[in-house]
């Protein structure tokens, strides 16, 4: 095990996978110089055939990803910030997510789309969306939200080796956080949640960015005698419903903490799955701690008001155990 920063782990995964398979190519706007850090060193190592700056034209980039995949390449498309996914949304929603079905299974689409998501750094409404609910609803694309360097590396490697389109969402502003990363070659399989902490009173499902503050809350509440079980789904598509259900069957209580807007968000979906499939076990209302249905305000004072925080999580959990 070595300590790596989140962004280094991503960089390592890209380097290793591009080394491993000459069919892996990466393109996007400003990928040659590594402003996020994730593409560092790739140009020197692999040259411009395999990593390449593009013009600013997201609609074309997403479409080209499909075409290059059809031509036998494993495409990594870097879209910088999640909001630019909307600019290239047609080929995502109408092509990438549908083409395998529409061609009767003739076409595999080994495409990994990278994009930073999330708020908290006053980047304003057009640079801080959390877009996974929209992607989850498309049906045809995987959605990965790693919260640790180890998961980031393993999920990214899995995505690149896989045959299906996957959105690998990097938690913006988390690049510097570090964690232990296995030394050997490994992948993290999709659809397997991680139970990060056990607890018998309340299950808290925390997604991406939200995992860290939730673990803090769990520590704190443990001292006050409340056992919080923390589950990180790691991938939202596919979603490991069973792990969540199993936990709720024991605790009888669920809080979902989600940095996406609330309406039709990931929290809503997980809550709905539990209200359907674990109903007999439920002892209390299913709670969502999420972002209200607003565009992200710029000023720190207003931005922090709408982002889920430790306090909000703590209150939600305590509201369930001591009503």
């Amino acid at each position, binding site marked *: 095990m070595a300590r790596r920063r989140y962004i280094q782990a991503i960089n390592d995964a890209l380097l290793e996978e591009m080394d491993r398979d000459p069919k892996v*190519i990466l393109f996007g706007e400003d990928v040659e110089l590594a402003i996020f850090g994730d593409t560092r060193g790739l140009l020197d190592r692999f040259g411009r*055939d395999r990593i390449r700056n*593009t*013009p600013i*034209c997201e*609609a*074309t*980039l*997403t*479409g*080209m*990803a*499909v*075409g*290059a*995949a*059809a*031509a*036998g*390449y494993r*495409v990594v498309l870097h879209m910088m910030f999640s909001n630019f996914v909307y600019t290239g949304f*047609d*080929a995502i929603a*109408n*092509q990438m997510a549908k*083409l*395998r*079905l*529409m*061609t*009767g*299974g*003739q*076409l*595999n689409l080994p495409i990994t789309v990278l994009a930073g998501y999330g708020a908290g750094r006053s980047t304003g409404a057009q640079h801080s969306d959390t877009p996974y609910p929209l992607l989850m609803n498309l*049906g*045809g694309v*995987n959605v990965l939200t790693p919260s640790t360097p180890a998961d980031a590396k393993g999920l990214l490697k899995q995505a690149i080796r*896989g*045959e*299906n389109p996957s959105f690998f969402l990097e938690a913006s502003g988390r690049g510097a956080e570090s964690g232990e990363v296995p030394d050997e070659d490994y992948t993290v399989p*999709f*659809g397997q949640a991680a139970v990060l902490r056990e607890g018998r009173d309340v299950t808290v499902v925390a997604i991406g960015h939200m995992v860290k503050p939730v673990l803090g809350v769990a520590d704190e509440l443990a001292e006050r005698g409340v056992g919080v079980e923390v589950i990180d789904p790691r991938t939202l598509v*596919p979603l490991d419903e069973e792990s969540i259900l199993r936990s709720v069957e024991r605790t009888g209580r669920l809080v979902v903490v989600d940095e996406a807007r609330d309406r039709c968000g990931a929290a809503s979906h997980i809550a709905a799955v539990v209200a359907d499939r674990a109903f007999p076990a439920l002892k209390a209302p299913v709670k969502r701690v999420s972002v209200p249905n607003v565009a992200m305000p710029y000023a720190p004072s207003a931005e922090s008001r709408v982002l889920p925080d430790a306090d909000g999580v703590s209150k939600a959990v305590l509201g369930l155990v001591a009503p």
Partner: protein
Amino acid sequence: MPTTEQLLSMYERMLLIRRMEERLSADYAAGKLPGAVHLYIGQEAVAVGVCAQLTDRDWITSTHRGHGHFLAKGGDPKAMMAEIWGKRTGICRGMGGSMHVADLSKGILGANGIVAGGIAIATGAAFGARLDGDGRVAVAFFGDGAANQGVFMETLNVSTLWGLPVVFLCEYNHFCEFTPSETVTAGQISDRARAFGMPCAVVDGNDVVEVWRAAGEAVERARGGGGPSFIEAKTYRIQGHLEAEAVILDGKYREEAEIEEWRRRDPIDRLREHLSAAGACDDDGFAEIESRVSGAVEEAAAFAAEGEPADPELAFDLMFVGQRP
């Protein structure tokens, strides 16, 4: 100039497209086809002239009006017909339908229900070909309406910059649905491509030889590493935008006389006259071709009619490789 053999082969292919679509038109009217159908009648010379320059390893992307491209590129009539009927014997196992016929084994990356949806896909495939360096070419077929979508200009830029082996093949058939194309098109579409420094040709899309020649130059350029080209083929959509148009449309958008005028320039008739005049084929010969073609159409129709309806569970298997949706 194509050889006589090539001309005859193109003639037969054009006729096959025409007769297949006439059959589809009749089948649609008879209520046999489940979805919407957009016919290519009158434009056959474009698909056939271009695809005659391609091999199975080259790619095409097509449009909502894609039967002609599919058949011209060597797609199987039976499997196409069955697809449009929604049968499990269809080329996409009944999952795609008329607007999405695709055959990867023939390099047909698919018809596309999104106007201009195929252009970036072709560009991406051409990027792959460029990296492989094996001389493969991608052709993006699209309509004059699609030329107003920004993605068209974006791909002109990228493909020029990167020297991609892609041919942009715009079929100016005078309409975007019910809107006359000139009312929504500023300037000449070819000038848009020229602005990027791309070699351009504007050809009579009802003259298969002219199309073939321009496509040949563009494809050769692409294969040789000379980068992208643009071709505009002027032609005319004889049928309605979609079958059933007459029933659902409130209003009129073109004159019968205009259609008649273009019928007189029918690309199949013109090639036939040319072949006759050149002594390359006589009435018996044409009758033989006609009968081969109608045999193929009959066979396709029977194959489609006999097929089992598409597997209701298939959607669950096909969304992902090795993963349930």
